[in-house]
Structure formats: C-alpha cells, structure tokens
C-alpha cells in the first residue's frame, strides 16, 4: 500500500509526520487485529533501553470495530461480535468501541519519562493533532463531546463536535516507564453508519448508550 486512499487522510498523515517526532508510516494491509496489536510493539520498543523518548506510528486500518479488553471480557462478547457486522479487533487502551475504516486515520504516539503520565501524554498527542489539522485549515481544541461515542476529556473537537477520540495504555520494564497515546481521527465517511455499528455491538452486550451523530464531525465535512 502507498498510503491512505482518502486524500485528506494522506494530507493529514504528511502533516503529522512533518510536525511530530520520528514517524513510522504504516500502511501494511494486515488483518485489523494485527494492525491494532502493532501498538503493543510500539510500547515494547519504547520500553527498550536506548529507545528514543518520542516516536509515532501513523497508520490506517480496514473496516472494523475496535473494542476494549473490558468489552471483550463481557459474557455476551461473542454474540455482540456476531451482531455488529464488522470484523472486531481488541485494543489495550480504555474507553469503548470505535470504528476504523478508510475514512479514519490512526496516530499512535509512544512517550517515555514524565510525558508518559496521563494528562501530559494526552496533551502532547492532542497538540500535535491540532497543529496538523491547522495545516489543513481546521481549527480544533481539546475537550469532552457530550453525546459522542467513546467520549472522554481529551477528544479533539472542532466547534464542540468530536473529530478524534483518544485513549492510551502504559507499561513498565526494568525501571523504565512508557505510554502509547493514540487517536482515531475521523477524516471522512458516514458517522451515522459508524454509530449504528457501535450501537448494535453495545446493545448486544447490554451496555448501549445513546449517541448523537451531531456530536461528531469529519475533516471532510469541515472543509466542504
């Protein structure tokens, strides 16, 4: 693969690579779970003595639903996988289910030292994404987006609507600590369809929430 098929995703990837730490541009066409698992390799690398303190992986994924380990431990998980209608991959970070597809761009930032701590790590990731979006002409900020799927304090917002969600996981080895902070950026696609996939999955788990398409936006919408 030569990069994201979505033109604005490709432009955003270039901006992230230009503005951020050393970047691995990862366009391999592996299965969704392998793509998600590669972030674990990032953490392992960050925990290796002599590794750079900051580096990033910019990547894409085929259409899938990416869920958490907590969701995967649910007794009705297998049924929920069957009902959602997409391949399901399990990630190490927290939150709830999100949809990946060719209209989303993923960035995973590996941090060590003080910046692997929660708030600092999210700020470093968010500021990088905000600067990259600014190169495309999108003004963004950090904050919660009530009514959005997988909400949290550290979404990337455009006009109070969620443009990207963030999550993280951390580890320790031989006295060294590191964290991988990642974001799923909605560049294009159909938000309502994505939310419907999430709703089907979470309804089958019995954990569904009410999500509002209007709480989300995409880069494509903002620039059209």
């Amino acid at each position: 693969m030569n990069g994201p098929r979505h033109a604005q995703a490709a432009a955003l990837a270039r901006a992230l690579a230009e503005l951020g730490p050393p970047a691995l541009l990862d366009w391999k066409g592996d299965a969704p779970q392998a793509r998600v698992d590669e972030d674990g390799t990032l953490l392992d690398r960050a925990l290796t003595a002599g590794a750079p303190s900051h580096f990033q992986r910019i990547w894409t994924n085929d259409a899938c639903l990416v869920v958490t380990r907590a969701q995967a431990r649910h007794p009705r998980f297998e049924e929920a996988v069957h009902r959602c209608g997409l391949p399901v991959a399990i990630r190490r970070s927290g939150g709830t289910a999100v949809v990946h597809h060719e209209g989303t761009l993923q960035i995973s930032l590996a941090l060590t030292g003080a910046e692997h701590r929660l708030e600092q790590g999210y700020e470093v990731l968010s500021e990088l994404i905000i600067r990259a979006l600014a190169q495309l002409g999108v003004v963004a900020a950090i904050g919660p987006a009530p009514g959005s799927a997988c909400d949290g304090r550290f979404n990337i917002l455009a006009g109070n609507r969620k443009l990207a969600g963030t999550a993280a996981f951390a580890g320790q080895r031989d006295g060294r600590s590191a964290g991988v902070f990642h974001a799923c950026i909605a560049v294009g696609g159909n938000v309502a369809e994505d939310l419907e996939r999430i709703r089907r999955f979470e309804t089958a788990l019995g954990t569904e929430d009410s999500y509002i398409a209007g709480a989300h936006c995409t880069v494509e919408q903002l620039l059209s």
Partner: protein
Amino acid sequence: MTELRIADDLWQDGEAAISAWFYEDGDTVRAGDVIAELMVEKSSFELRAPADGRLTILAQAEEPVIKGQTVARIA
C-alpha cells in the same frame, strides 16, 4: 509481606478503578507478573507484582481506587 500500591504520579485528576485482576485471590504470583489492569480516563496501566508470593486482593474490580491506595498484598 509486600504491598501493591497505586503509584502517586500516574495521573492528576479523574477516577480510577481496577478493571480486571488476572489472578484470583490466593493465587501464587511471581515478581514482575502483570496481575491487574488499572483504568483511568480511557488509559490502562499494567500493575505488576512487586514480589513473589500469595496474592491477597484488597480492592475488587470496578471499585474506585485512589492514588497511593494499597490494592493487594503479596506474602
């Protein structure tokens, strides 16, 4: 006896909870084993056994925990 404490410097604000224990109360664990997962603000942290021994769980999964709290003992 060794205590497993939640580190003071992992996060500033927000609620935390052990999302899962990977061993049962009374199990034998080894130093360095990942024995639990702590979740704060959509972030997961591995909790590793600080010593070899038998695990006594003091904070149940999904219960709120705070920085500095002892969540298990290993003896």
